[in-house]
């Protein structure tokens, strides 16, 4: 039965879970289908990206301003890029592709974003985790010194990426320029996001500028968790949390705003 007006909170949560589960399966099937390895592509694809970049950086012996092994550096750096970059990429234009779902009253715009964010988050996380495990077992990488700091840094990037994704997704429904600008912006942010340098290796004035970018703090945290004593990490969790909180509120307001303007076909 479809729900009647004003169900209780518990009932609402149950509906919410059901809707997200249904949307997740639908998204996974639509994106990856049942051919060859199917939904394993979810994390095989980001793994291929990370492996490729790691191989490239190793081959060119990229300078990164520290004596960390390049494999470790590339893995932590590029995995975080995938995390914050793919979520907005998938949420921009997500509503247009799913407008007809709005005929099911239990599905809200936020659910469509949440489903896509969850898929991107799982893909990036499984890929990061698997690669780290493989590298550790094969001796290219030391196990993280402080697993919790790694996890905290990862979650901070994920939170910021998720709310950025919802904000840009909602805005993209009204302003198609968002889509046009996001591609160059994400490309330019990649080298600035801390993936390719340690903040401590930068000159002081550059440090100050770079630390305005929230992702940098997360990457620094991950590196501290992994390498601890071997690097000097510079970050301010409070700054990222404040940014994410403000953006979260903005994202929720924008989703409500855009929902009023939806016209399903």
């Amino acid at each position, binding site marked *: 039965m479809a729900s009647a007006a004003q169900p209780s909170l518990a009932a609402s949560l149950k509906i919410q879970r059901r809707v997200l589960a249904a949307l997740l399966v639908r998204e996974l099937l639509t994106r990856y289908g049942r051919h060859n390895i199917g939904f394993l592509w979810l994390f095989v694809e980001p793994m291929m990206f990370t492996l490729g970049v790691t191989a490239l950086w190793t081959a060119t012996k990229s300078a990164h301003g520290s004596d960390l092994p390049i494999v470790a550096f590339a893995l932590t750096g590029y995995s975080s890029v995938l995390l914050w970059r793919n979520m907005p990429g998938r949420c921009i234009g997500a509503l247009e592709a799913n407008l*007809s779902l709005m005929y099911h009253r239990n599905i809200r715009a936020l659910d469509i974003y949440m489903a896509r964010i969850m898929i991107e988050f799982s893909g990036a996380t499984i890929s990061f985790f698997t690669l780290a495990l493989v590298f550790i077992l094969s001796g290219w990488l030391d196990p993280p010194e402080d697993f919790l700091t790694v996890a905290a840094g990862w979650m901070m990037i994920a939170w910021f990426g998720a709310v950025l994704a919802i904000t840009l997704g909602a805005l993209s429904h009204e302003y198609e320029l968002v889509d046009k600008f996001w591609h160059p912006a994400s490309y330019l942010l990649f080298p600035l996001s801390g993936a390719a340098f340690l903040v401590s290796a930068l000159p002081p004035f550059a440090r100050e500028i770079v630390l305005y970018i929230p992702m940098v703090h997360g990457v620094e945290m991950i590196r501290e968790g992994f390498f601890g004593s071997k690097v000097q990490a510079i970050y301010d969790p409070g700054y990222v949390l404040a940014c994410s909180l403000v953006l979260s509120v903005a994202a929720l307001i924008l989703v409500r705003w855009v929902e009023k303007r*939806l016209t399903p076909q």
Partner: protein
Amino acid sequence: MIAVENISKDYRTRTGPRRVLDNVNFTLHKGERLGVLGRNGAGKSTLIRLVSGAERPTSGQITRGMSVSWPLAFGGAFQSQLTGVDNVRFISRLYAQDPEHNLAFIEEFAELGQYLREPVMTYSSGMRARLAFAISMIIEFDCFLIDEIASVGDARFHERCNYELFDKRGDRAMMIISHDPGYLRDHCNRFAVLDAGRLTAFDDFETAHDHFLAQMRVREPVRAVAQPFSRRMAAIDSLRRVAHEDEHFMALVRQADAARDRHDWAAAEASYAAALSLHPYERSYWVQLGHVTREQGRMVRAEIAYRTACAFGESVRVLEPFIAAVEQPGKAAPAIPVAAPDGGETRRQPPGYPDLAVLAALAQGRDRLGDDEALALMRRQDGIEDVLAHMLDDPSTTASGAALPGGIAVVPGDAPLRIEWREDLARLAGARQEELDAALARGDELFHALRRSGGLDGWAVPAASRAEASA
């Protein structure tokens, strides 16, 4: 209960907000079936989307005290890359139902066979419609929203849909939108008319229908753009399409068909005649007009109607027995052969009654023809140009530039006069419409104006010069 209170809906356009629904109010209780009539663009689909909750009103409130379906037979919610099975599973999960149980029902009901396991994008539109309807039936809603279900699938499937929906689920609330009054009359017990965003409720079907027709009448009619077709049959074919897009015309013929079906021949004749006055070249309704006048014993009019249908391209073989029956009861074949178009130049084609009326207006400035006179002209089997020459030779022809009639009768009897007859004339004579209008606005005599705008080119109309010379 569903309560719709003061809802309005604006859409943003480049030229500012456009109000699609304006302060709409109604309530719907269990067991009530509300039929909403409206023209295309009246806001019907917007209303159903708002009630379904897919879209938010700009202002006002909708309270849903029961579960409401999505607009039925709507196939858009499919993910076309996914298979039918996956789509069924998705909907089942969404509404907390057992997917496998639903699949069994859908396999049986939608009759898609192996296609159910193929991506929906490989389906034909009929298969999609069947799957969409079947999926709509697996969720037991208290209220169904139905958008023009009449168009779903073939007749057999349609019958099963009607049974599932109106019989097995006859106790539910329903809201049905349509521009087909007959469909609503058969399935609804409450009626409303939506026009320009405003909803007016009615207690019974007849008043709602009258209101709907009255609103059609005040609209600008759909008019054909006079393309200078050189072949008459191509022109007639495109004019029929124009007629079918004119909702007023379609409403009139539906009304006429309904009257015919209950053997109210006089009412049917009046409605067909009114429809044909709007679009005189929709030949199939000349056949119907022939039938309903024959039933009333008006044999001359019936013969005129049948011969007009043939002149406009209806099958002579099919209509000959009818013509014979009204011409000389008891005979198997018409004594006077029936003229049919041969696809050649317009001026050599046989005239239908509207052509005769237009020619009489042109040659003699008259606004109507007598039935016997018209039938005599048709039986002569002349082409259009010869008929015109004959009319000009008639001593009663007014040689002076008499005032042109404002409207003429293009259907025998007392149907409304056709104001746009000059468009028919321009098309008949092959004149360029705008130039003709301009010449007439300058005060040119009609023949003169026709020739100056490229009309009557190659026509053998010797006597025309007399009228022209004296103008």
